[in-house]
């Protein structure tokens, strides 16, 4: 042969090629995502500078500040529930949104999954569009209909049901509705794909064994769907708890949630360590929930 045979070993080593392909994305995420969170973690233990930013003095003040207020004069700590209420309100709002999304999504997803292929595609398309439409625009649209002189109130007045506009916007109710409106598609779509995989012969078997429709649904369908229900619930709960736009636009800035509280620390009040501490708490809650879900899923997979 004229040329030396091209040996397998003379190519670029596969390990090196793989690293070259993988590392640019990893590096970008590590540098611009993981490192910033590391910095935040550090900042949460520093002292706030008077005009934003931090001073490099160690302090746990950011974390104690969540529960206590330091008196200006005698430096004593007094319990203040203000921030705790905001955290509790966030959890409460997220929980309400999750439960209501479940109640709406289960029948809807089930209904879609049992349609003919054609109808199914149309329904899926209908649900998918809001999923991808700009969240700010959708929140604005909801504010538009809920306003004092918006279509809902006008219609109710025209019908003579009420004489004064109902306070539908700029309150806790509006935030709840906003969270449901924002994240409802997040629940319907995964539930739909879970129902799609449901083995409907189980339902036949239940009827065959004298189950009523109600019993069949609650004793057979829902328990089998449990993993899907949990996954869907988290997909609503997690973005809800850290939500910024819904409370900001629909709550009118009065009824704050933890997301707004964090945002505010980096804008107006400018207490960076406090904002960083709140972020760490929110992140920890989120990651714990996700980790729990991942371990559950892994266990489920092992069982199958």
């Amino acid at each position: 042969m004229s040329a030396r045979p091209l040996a397998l070993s003379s190519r670029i080593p596969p390990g090196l090629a793989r690293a070259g392909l993988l590392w640019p994305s990893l590096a970008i995420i590590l540098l611009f995502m993981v490192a910033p969170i590391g910095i935040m973690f550090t900042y949460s233990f520093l002292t706030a500078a008077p005009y934003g930013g931090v001073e490099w003095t160690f302090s746990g003040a950011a974390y104690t500040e969540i529960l206590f207020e330091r008196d200006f004069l005698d430096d004593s700590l007094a319990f203040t529930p203000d921030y705790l209420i905001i955290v509790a309100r966030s959890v409460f709002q997220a929980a309400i949104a999750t439960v209501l999304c479940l109640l709406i999504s289960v029948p809807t997803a089930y209904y879609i999954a049992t349609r003919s292929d054609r109808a199914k595609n149309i329904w899926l398309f209908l649900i998918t569009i809001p999923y991808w439409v700009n969240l700010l625009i959708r929140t604005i649209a909801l504010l538009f209909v809920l306003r004092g002189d918006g279509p809902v109130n006008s219609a109710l007045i025209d019908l003579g049901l009420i004489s004064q506009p109902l306070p539908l916007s700029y309150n806790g109710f509006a935030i709840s509705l906003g969270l449901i409106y924002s994240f409802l598609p997040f629940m319907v779509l995964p539930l739909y794909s879970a129902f799609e995989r449901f083995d409907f012969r189980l339902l036949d078997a239940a009827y065959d064994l004298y189950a009523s429709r109600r019993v069949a649904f609650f004793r057979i369908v829902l328990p089998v769907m449990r993993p899907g229900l949990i996954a869907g619930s988290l997909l609503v709960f997690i973005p809800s708890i850290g939500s910024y736009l819904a409370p900001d636009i629909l709550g009118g800035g009065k009824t704050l949630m933890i997301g707004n509280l964090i945002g505010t620390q980096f804008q107006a009040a400018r207490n960076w360590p406090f904002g960083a501490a709140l972020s760490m708490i929110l992140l920890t809650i989120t990651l714990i929930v996700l980790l729990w879900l991942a371990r559950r899923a892994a266990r489920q997979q092992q069982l199958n």
Partner: protein
Amino acid sequence: MQRAVIHPHPIPPGSISQTMAAGQNPVPHPHTVATEVRNLCKIYNAGTSRAHEALKDFNLAIRANEFFTLLGPSGCGKTTLLRILGGFEPLTSGICRIFGDDVSVLPPEARPVNTVFQQYALFPHMTVRSNIAFGLEMLGKPRAEIERTVEKMLDLVHMTEYADRKPDTMSGGQRQRVALARALAPQPKLLLLDEPLSALDLKLRQKMRLELKSLQRETGITFVFVTHDQEEALAMSDRVAVISNGCLQQVGTPEDIYEQPQSRFVADFIGESNLIDARVARFSGCEAILDIAGFDQVHADVAQDLAHGQPVSLSIRPERLVLSAGEGEGRGLATVFDRTYLGNAVEYHLRAGDHALTARSPRGGLRGRQDFAPGDTVHIAFEPGSIKVLLS
């Protein structure tokens, strides 16, 4: 810089290969070795706790122009061997030659070998025509030649009318033909077939066996065929290698393998065998007299040296057990405990002392053969020359 490739048709001085086209392969000397592996070892995950030795010091030579089958149960190493020949799997040690050239470290694209993959691996975004042309294009053949060869290949596998279809619009049998045409188009020196019939249903599989065999004759290309289906192996092959557990058990013609199994494994794996423990009573040259518990002594021709008192296994095919109600030439008594009707034969499951035996009569009861029912006591005899002595 030109990539170093052993082209499917290197041009040996004065060779007729320059004029070669499909169906006109030169007929090399019958004993030319097409491919051989020497002292081949393949260890997966070497050096880890999951290390697995797939091939152990493997030696095999496949002759030019033959339809050669690698036969064995799944996990025996036959597919590993095929993948090593194709260059898809690096070998751990040993050497692999194709027509004399050492190809051990060559990647697949530099080997004059093509493969028909198990699930065909047809390129789904290309038409049948582009699939078949792909290899020729990669070899840098001129446009006109590619077109000519593709047409010829389409004709060869009777797929001309499907030339512009995409693979996913075709049936399993049609895809199979396209995969064959694609692999044959570059005129490989060796065609590797990785269980290509396993995805087809029974009728189609039987039809494709005949087609494959005639394709091999027409093209004169050496086929290396991997299967776990012994019937397939016996039906198509010139020679068969039986592999078990990473080791070569026996190489030979289908008749050799079936009639003269050299190990318990081969006797058991190829067709069905009654395996009976025995002891050598007397041995002289090429004949032995053997003791079987509960039976009269039997004679057998043997090829190997045996010692007195040596324990051996006897292999007897079910169709070569003769059952009769009268004593006649019977060697022992057995009880029928099950009778299975198979259409073209009847199978009897027998118990004789500690031995469980199977006998098969062509259409039991007819043509002078007696039929038996469960519970009957029968006399068993062995057809002359039917006993194979295997070293235990």
